[in-house]
């Protein structure tokens, strides 16, 4: 959170820099089956975020020491392509992508029925081709769709969305400017069928009331986004 409170990002009508109101989510498209060689795949555009996810498996887990006798291992990798941001990113793993890979894996492990595939491995590859803000939310949501596209049994799909605070106003789904100069960011991973959570992070500064508002915005947005996900899985998606 940059916390530059003097930059005006909400106008007198309560509209944001990209013309949305406080609860509006950026435009979303989801397309399945975009990687022909993968067992399941998904491309999700969310604002100018463009994320591609491939799922491979269940397949043999090797080396054998990583195998679990009672369930599958979920191998999740989040990565940003070198050309995905304004300044080029040097290829290779970094602390940020490693953390996001881990929390994404933790969220997905909560819903994937891993015990159905003992001693095997399921690979989830999240590649950010174009980043705006909230790529971890896009990656986690798209990964859920790709897993479903691969036919991997799950108790629910994770819908991830972030709300935050800009100029002391709580807003849903931060864009790039709001993410850079806003005062708080609260990404959540929601299970739409039960209303439960599998992913939660936060940084910034929120009062208890603001926190509750941001929480409620996320839950509501998750239900709306879930409809798009289900629709994409039924039709192949992308309109």
């Amino acid at each position, binding site marked *: 959170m940059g916390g530059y409170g003097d930059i005006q990002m909400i106008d007198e009508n309560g509209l944001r820099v990209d013309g949305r109101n406080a609860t509006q989510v950026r435009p979303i498209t989801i397309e399945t089956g975009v*990687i*022909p*060689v*993968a067992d399941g795949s998904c491309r999700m555009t969310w604002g*100018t975020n*463009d994320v*591609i*996810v*491939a799922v*491979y498996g269940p*397949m043999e887990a090797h080396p054998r020491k990583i195998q679990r006798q009672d369930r599958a291992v979920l191998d999740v*990798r989040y*990565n940003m*392509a*070198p*050309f*995905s*941001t*304004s*300044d*080029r990113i040097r*290829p*290779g793993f970094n602390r940020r992508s490693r953390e996001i890979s881990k929390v994404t894996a933790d969220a997905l492990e909560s819903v994937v029925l891993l015990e159905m595939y003992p001693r095997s491995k399921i*690979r989830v*590859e999240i*590649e950010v*081709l*174009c*980043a705006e803000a909230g790529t971890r939310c896009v990656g986690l949501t798209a990964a859920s769709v790709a897993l479903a596209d691969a036919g991997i049994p799950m108790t629910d799909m994770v819908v991830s969305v972030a709300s935050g605070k800009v100029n002391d106003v709580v807003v849903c789904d931060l864009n790039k400017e709001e993410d850079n100069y806003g005062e708080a960011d609260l990404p959540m991973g929601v299970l739409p069928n039960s209303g439960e959570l599998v992913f939660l992070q936060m940084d910034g500064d929120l009062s208890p009331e603001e926190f509750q508002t941001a929480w409620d915005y996320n839950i509501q947005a998750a239900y709306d986004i879930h409809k798009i996900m289900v629709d994409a899985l039924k039709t192949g998606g992308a309109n």
Partner: protein
Amino acid sequence: MAIPMVSKLLRNHLHELALNDQRIDGREQWEGRPLQLEVDVLERAEGSAKVTMGDTIVYAGVKFQLMTPYPDRPNEGGLMCGAEVRPVAGRNWEPGPPSAESIELGRVVDRGIRESGCIDVNSLCIIPGEKAWQVILDLFAISDDGNLFDAFALAAIAALKTAIVPCEKFEVGEDYPLNVSKIPIMCSYHKVGNRFVYDANSQEELGGDERIHITLGEEYHVHSLQKGLKGIFSADEFAEIMERAKIQSSELRKLVNTVLGD
């Protein structure tokens, strides 16, 4: 990249098909897969392209950085070309530092572009000895069904052709399109069974032998060659694929020009 077991059945099958002038996916010997080239597909890149060849899909993105020219070449900027085949592109591609395969990919594409002289490195200089542009071309595969070389090379030149030098962002003047004067084109041939074929798919790569990559410029000037993998070929075989490369590179160059609207 993990090299999967090559089944004798696949090798024998490909060999028999070749004897009957057939290919495993029904194509003719010199026939490429359906090809699609799109440009300006990546919002944050200064130039970009996406190539779909059958089930092979790759992206190329161009970024710019300011650099200090090398002391022995104070009037020149730089060009850097790297290929990454991340595990997203197929089950045999593994995470970790770049594999020998992806380094070879990047270097062969790099040579074709560099040696064609399509980018005038002197024009990348801003202040001699002090400041110059480094053009960074990143090749990124998302689906590997064979012949990443040609897909990367085509995406690379198309991305460069659409690149805008971001002077305003770096506060060194006004943005202008990168001057790319030529269109080098790579054509790759794979020995499958007893003969070479054009644009091998992943099964043909797996059950085939050596591959030869030819990058041709305007008027059929040769800019890069690479023989990869184990295998022996004759001068006559090479002469035959060189003739094919002349025809096919001309067709691909026309496609690039059509897509770019030149």
